[in-house]
């Protein structure tokens, strides 16, 4: 199924919550959606006849300057098509509904995005730091992150 067909199908089902379809050259076709009803959109993508995105490829958090973005790369093994779903939230209140129960794979991916970018996945059962130590301060992948000087008495910069 082509990206614009997927977009139309989503648009019919969810209306205003589906914002736009980006098919610029150089960009992979992606659909931008509102974060409010994300879990339902994901469930629709997973279960709807014809879409059946059963395989979660990747979840990336992106620092877009003013906003934080979450990018979901989905793939369907049955239909052999793929789509990118994008969500943007403001940096002050980076709340995105958690999709860990839609695809269990996103459990760790969401923890990683929380760890490195500070995106708050609402509804995640165990949203703790995964890569960095539990008492680490700040979210390193944000563009305005500054390296700490000391951590537990160890000097960090060279």
């Amino acid at each position, binding site marked *: 199924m082509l990206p614009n067909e997927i977009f139309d199908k989503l648009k019919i089902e969810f209306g205003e919550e589906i914002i736009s379809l980006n098919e610029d050259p150089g960009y992979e076709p992606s659909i931008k959606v509102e974060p409010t009803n994300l879990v339902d959109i994901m469930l629709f993508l997973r279960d709807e006849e014809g879409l059946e995105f059963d395989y979660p490829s990747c979840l990336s958090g992106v620092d877009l300057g003013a906003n934080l973005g979450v990018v979901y790369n989905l793939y369907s093994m049955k239909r052999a098509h793929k789509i990118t779903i994008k969500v943007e939230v403001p940096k002050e209140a980076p709340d995105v509904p958690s999709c860990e129960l839609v695809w269990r794979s996103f459990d760790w991916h969401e923890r990683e995005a929380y760890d490195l970018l500070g995106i708050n996945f609402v509804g995640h059962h165990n949203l703790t730091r995964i890569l960095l130590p539990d008492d680490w301060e700040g979210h390193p992948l944000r563009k305005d992150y500054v390296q700490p000087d000391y*951590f537990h008495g160890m000097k960090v*910069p060279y």
Partner: protein
Amino acid sequence: MGLLDRLDNPYDVGDNIFLGTVEDVLNWGRSKSDWYMTFGLACCAIEFMAVNAAHFDFMRFGCIPRPSPRQTDFIIISGTVTLKMAERIKRLYEQMAEPKYVISMGSCSNSGGPYWENGYHVLKGVDRIIPVDVYIPGCPPRPEAFMDGMVQLQSKINHQAIFRKRKEMRPEDIAAIDQRQIELKKLRAEYEAYRIEHLDLTGVDNVAK
């Protein structure tokens, strides 16, 4: 100088006699029988596994792997030391029995390697937390380089003074030793206080509650 080197160059005492000191024998034993900890960190650990394997055969030097730090003589810091791992490495080093040695393998554990600039979570050199005896450069070092490091470590052990009399030591050494004794006592007292406070957690490392 090891006992076996003396075989080639004995003191002039006569035929079929060679002399050595007890220190030589002890140093010889330590240098020829090095048990290392089976412990790998990152990329260098793969090269280290290759050194162990059939082609390079690390056991030729008398190095035998042991899984438990209590029985090992030296530890190979083979790869990037992160801040999360650093405390564990320090602890492993403290668990080892004296005499103990450290080989820092590869740029990452020497100085942070390719992550020296932007690695916010990388310790820039393992010598910031534990003393290092031999540094092996390379990213990762070739097995040949690693073997050379091993030979360097063995010759270092061979030249160690085991029996040092206090009156023959330099005053600053004695002062350092005394200082260390005081530090150790303080650490012990702190540990005791900590242990009494967290008595129910002894033996369990950060149990996820």
